[in-house]
């Protein structure tokens, strides 16, 4: 049996991705002013600059639209059957991200609708988007657990699935990075204690990662 032909990166894919980046830019433009205000508050409370909100806040404005854009890209022909596609972690992560936006869309739909320009200036964009990010991470995590625990993780060495996996991993890391670091710190406790004796790094390390007040 001859292997299924691989679909290269086509002009149509590029057009879909450009639309997604445009939507992401719009969201980022609306998100940034309230995000910067909240960062000022954090800086005032902790007295330190933390890089983590910057790593997981604004980039997600682009990540979620790109994930949604990967769904129609995956569904373009030639493609495998839907059941085969649904066992690919990249595609599953993208579908989960799209589903996670449904509650936010419902809330927005029922909200009194101003014009788009006024809507984007509202402070609710920050709260709504933060909520959507948290929901996206949980949904992707739940979907990947099904594939992983059921031993049905069929990753494909193809650019579409790879992109989906990378973007999904980014979403999952949002809630997991602190937990992973906590476990790592517990495991490396003796080494870190030695480092703290020598360099006095321990309190600074903790306050930097966990945004603790100074």
């Amino acid at each position, binding site marked *: 049996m001859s292997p299924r032909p691989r679909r290269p990166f086509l002009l149509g894919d590029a057009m879909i991705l450009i639309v997604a980046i445009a939507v992401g830019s719009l969201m980022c433009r609306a998100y940034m002013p309230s995000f910067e205000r909240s960062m000022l508050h954090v800086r005032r409370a902790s007295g330190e600059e933390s890089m983590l909100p910057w790593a997981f806040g604004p980039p997600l404005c682009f990540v979620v639209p790109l994930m949604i854009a990967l769904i129609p890209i995956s569904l373009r022909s030639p493609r495998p059957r*839907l*059941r085969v596609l*649904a*066992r690919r972690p990249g595609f*599953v992560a993208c*579908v*989960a991200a799209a*589903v*996670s936006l449904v*509650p936010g869309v*419902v*809330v927005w739909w*029922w909200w009194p609708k101003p014009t788009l320009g006024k809507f984007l200036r509202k402070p609710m964009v920050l709260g709504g988007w933060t*909520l959507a990010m*948290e*929901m996206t*991470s*949980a*949904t*992707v*995590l*739940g*979907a*990947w*657990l*099904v*594939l992983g*625990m*059921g*031993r*049905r993780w069929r990753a494909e060495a193809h650019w579409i699935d790879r992109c989906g996996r990378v973007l999904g991993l980014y979403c999952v890391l949002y*809630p*997991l990075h*602190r*937990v992973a670091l*906590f476990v790592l710190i517990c495991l490396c406790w003796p080494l870190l204690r030695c480092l703290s004796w020598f360099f006095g790094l321990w309190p600074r390390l903790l306050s930097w990662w*966990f*945004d*603790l*007040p100074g």
Partner: protein
Amino acid sequence: MDVAILMGTLVSGGLAARWADAQFLLAQGDETLDLRQSYERLQHDGVFLLVVLTMGVGWVAAWSGESWTRRGMAQPGVMAVFVGVLVGGVMALDSWLTSYPSQRILISTLFRDVLEFRLPMAILGAWIALRLGGLWRPAREDRDRVGRVVGWGWLLLGGLRILHRLVFD
């Protein structure tokens, strides 16, 4: 054995919900409850009931060897409680790590937001992955049936939370 643990879980869940209800009423004082407070009371007690049920059914499912097979992992109820325990545990640990020490005393407040918003979405994501992959195979076993009820309970609670935003905020 499984039936006994499930019955025990149901009783414990009921007791947890009663305790949570008493705590909620204590926090509200002697005032009569309006519509919003009654709604929040339902949400508040529901979280406690579902947490106990999820952990109990998760224990039964983990104890059974069949749950760890590929067929067991295709049962929506079993998957719902596994995802609930794992994602809920991770999210709760994350919220505990990120909160200020003074907030950590109020564990119920701390975890409620996490559980009401994120856990239903994790279960929804898991069930969608099962459905899309054609793996949705409900079993005629108590643990799967109760697990499905728990899963629907979490989804209902998530829906109530979204409705809360629409109606009261």
